[in-house]
């Protein structure tokens, strides 16, 4: 596996490494598409792929689960499945990771049902274990196992806030969209567009995010800007690409769309 690209914006790499060495569970906060998942991939690569020990040989070093409101504890821990005329136990992703010593990344954890969030409690304190009630097993997590969760404080309602008892088990790293220069660098790297186009796209990002409050709370994500870049590199006219990836995506309000389109029109050459 090659190194997943990640441009550090502050000390997050060092912090995560330190957290990993003490096996402290990590909570990543930040708006959608700002690079949380990529960061976890990058850190897994740093901590696993470049390791000389047995960690380096792990087949699946990162287990990612995108949480949704129907996600149950069973989905995470595991269930009995039928095979022929017998039932066999099948580990869920969380159990798998805890057993093998991988990093388990629960993306958008607040989306999951409340019982799911409580499930991780015993894994995230000094006990580091996971009771599997269906098999009666008390799984003690592998030494290398680490739990990482992410959540987006912006768009969830108050009802969907993370419980304090859950939140307090994690060290928190905050993410936001990068500064204009760094973002341009990321766009240029990821979408392989020319530097000046990347600069322009990053400038659009800054201006459009100024309109965050109007119907779209998050502004345009770095991911969307990269998409626009990829379309441009694929031969689509920059204006059209920005329209598809940015203008139409950020808001459904006609006035806001018009304003965003006008900003794009002025910034693109």
């Amino acid at each position, binding site marked *: 596996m090659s190194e997943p690209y990640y441009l550090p914006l502050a000390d997050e790499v060092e912090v995560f490494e330190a957290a990993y060495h003490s096996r402290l569970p990590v909570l990543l906060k930040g708006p959608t598409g700002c690079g949380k998942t990529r960061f976890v991939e990058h850190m897994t690569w740093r901590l696993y792929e470049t390791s000389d020990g047995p960690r380096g040989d792990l087949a699946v070093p990162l287990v990612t689960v995108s949480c949704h409101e129907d996600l149950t504890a069973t989905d995470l821990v595991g269930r009995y499945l039928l095979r022929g005329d017998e039932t066999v136990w099948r580990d869920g992703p969380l159990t798998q990771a805890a057993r093998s010593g991988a990093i388990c990344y629960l993306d958008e954890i607040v989306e999951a049902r409340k019982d799911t969030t409580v499930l991780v409690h015993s894994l995230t304190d000094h006990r580091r274990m996971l009771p599997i009630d269906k098999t009666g097993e008390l799984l003690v997590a592998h030494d290398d196992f680490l739990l990482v969760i992410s959540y987006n404080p912006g768009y969830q309602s108050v009802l969907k806030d993370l419980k304090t008892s859950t939140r307090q088990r994690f060290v928190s790293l905050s993410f936001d969209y990068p500064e204009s220069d760094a973002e341009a660098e990321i766009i240029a790297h990821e979408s392989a567009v020319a530097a000046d186009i990347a600069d322009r796209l990053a400038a659009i990002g800054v201006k459009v995010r*100024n*309109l965050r409050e109007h119907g779209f709370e998050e502004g345009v994500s770095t991911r969307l800007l990269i998409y626009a870049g990829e379309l441009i590199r694929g031969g689509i006219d920059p204006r059209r690409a920005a329209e598809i990836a940015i203008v139409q995506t950020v808001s459904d309000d006609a006035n806001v769309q018009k*304003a965003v389109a006008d900003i794009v029109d*002025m910034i693109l050459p």
Partner: protein
Amino acid sequence: MVDLADVERPLALFAEGIAGRHCHLKVGDEDAADPGVYLPARIDIFDDETLNAAIYRLRVLVQLGFREFGTFAFDIDRARARIPGLAARPPPPVHRESDLTLFFNHFDAPPAARSLFHVIESARVEAQTLRRYPGARKYKAALDPHRDAPVDFLRPVIDRVCAPDATVYDTAEAVIECYGMFAVDVEESGDGAFPGHMEWAQREARLEDWERELDDANAEVSAMEVVELSSGDQVKVGQGKGDGDVRQVGQDLVRARDDLQRRIDSERSELRHRFGASPVDARSFLYDEWDCLERRYRKAWCRLFEIEIDPRDAADDGGRGLMRSVRPYARAVRRRFEQIRPIGYQRIRKVADGDELDLGALVDVRSDLRAGVSPDDRVYSQRKRARRDVGAAFLVDLSASTDDPVEAAEPPTNDTAPQDLRDPWFDDDDASADRPPSPAESRRIIDIQKEAVALMATALEGIGDEYGVYGFSGYGKDCIEFHVAKEFDEPFRRRTLDAIAAMKPKRSTRMGPAIRHAAGKLAAAGAALKVLMIVSDGFPQDCDYGPERGNHEYGVRDTAKALEEAERAGIHTFCVTVDRSGHDYLRRMCPETHYMVIEETEGLPAALQKAYRQLTQI
């Protein structure tokens, strides 16, 4: 031909995106000192409409460019240090002026210098703007044939200030260079004078700089205090006897910081005084108004400012006092509201646990088992109380007349009084002489309005309906105030009660725009059942609400129209008034089932609850 009114909304958003803060777009008159972006009321240069609209955007970009490209960052001391030609001139006396004004005052004829500066600086800012926003070049190219070219003698300096690294100081230098030669010419041509509001904008920007400086100074002073403490000296900076360098430096720092603080305070108060009419940090919205005489909408006629109520403005004990006065009733009201039956129960199928097995899911499990595949283990169904999906906005009239004591609602002896009492500009010396002196704890209409709303809030918290609490007032069509005590998505907190308690009688009652704005908020909140309740104490009226002040027909008709628009948007409206003569005009404003006139002001809370329960009980 494009009217500003037609493109105002997306254009304001565009400006906000570019500037990173809300900008008030205003028509014409650049001499006005209010902050804002000034634009012509209509642009009719090209046959192509989209091009005319694009010129609006170009003008917005260039005007915002003055801030973006450092015109307002002009600092007179730095200018004198950098420009020998300026340092050679004697400095003008310093009053409280913008640094740009100080610069102009270096010349014998400041207006000439100011015109020259405007011409050259505009060229510089435009060049920078086009560099940063290359998309604007095509519009500028289209516009150029329709504009006057710069005067010949200015061309060389303009070329120079259009260089990528030119700053406002290069402009200043160019002004000095050209001033001696051609001052007279420019002075005589009156147009193109540097607009007055720019100098205020410079002062505003300078204030922000000073505030940053103050932060730095504070940091320095506290660092200095730490140094002194760590050296074992327990004396605070600035209080010592002045022995030793460190202490001397410390004292100077403190003095400089205090000076700066004083300067900031006085500048801020002057700016506030100047901009008083349009609150700088409030968002503004334009609304149409129905003109019943011409039977058409006046486009983007009223400007409404949305102002968040500062809970700290509440009188003495604020929310606590309000709480005290509603507490005796709160429990009963809550109980009465809790009796509102929820709309019903909903059965949610296929869940992991619940109160009943889901037969359909079980059949699926059986068939899965037979087929030899793993069944879904979610075989229960759950009974859930369906959520009441109600959103309500309470719109409280904060006109001056709500300051009247409740007793004054008795029929007054003076025949003309009923109307005039509600008129905030009526010089009511005579009328007040007739009024009984109010006892110290006499309650005013506003107090009862606030209690009614606070009671509603506690009740609605009990049943979980979403609601917002707003007040409205204002003076004139360009300054309608919409005060926000609680937004829909805000939880009910101590702060909320304080904000309700901080509602104060203000000026007049232009109801139309306030209703339109509240209706917009309701629609955005997105509840299935939307209710707008207006609590007022008199008919809609404002200084320019209609052709003549005595005639309230115009205002009544506009309000009726606004209510009608809201109804059409699926909002249930309801007016509650404590004005006994309310029947006269409410009948013309809304259907009989949509309003209520309360005889005794004290009965307002109960009436409001009753109306709300009837409206939302489906």
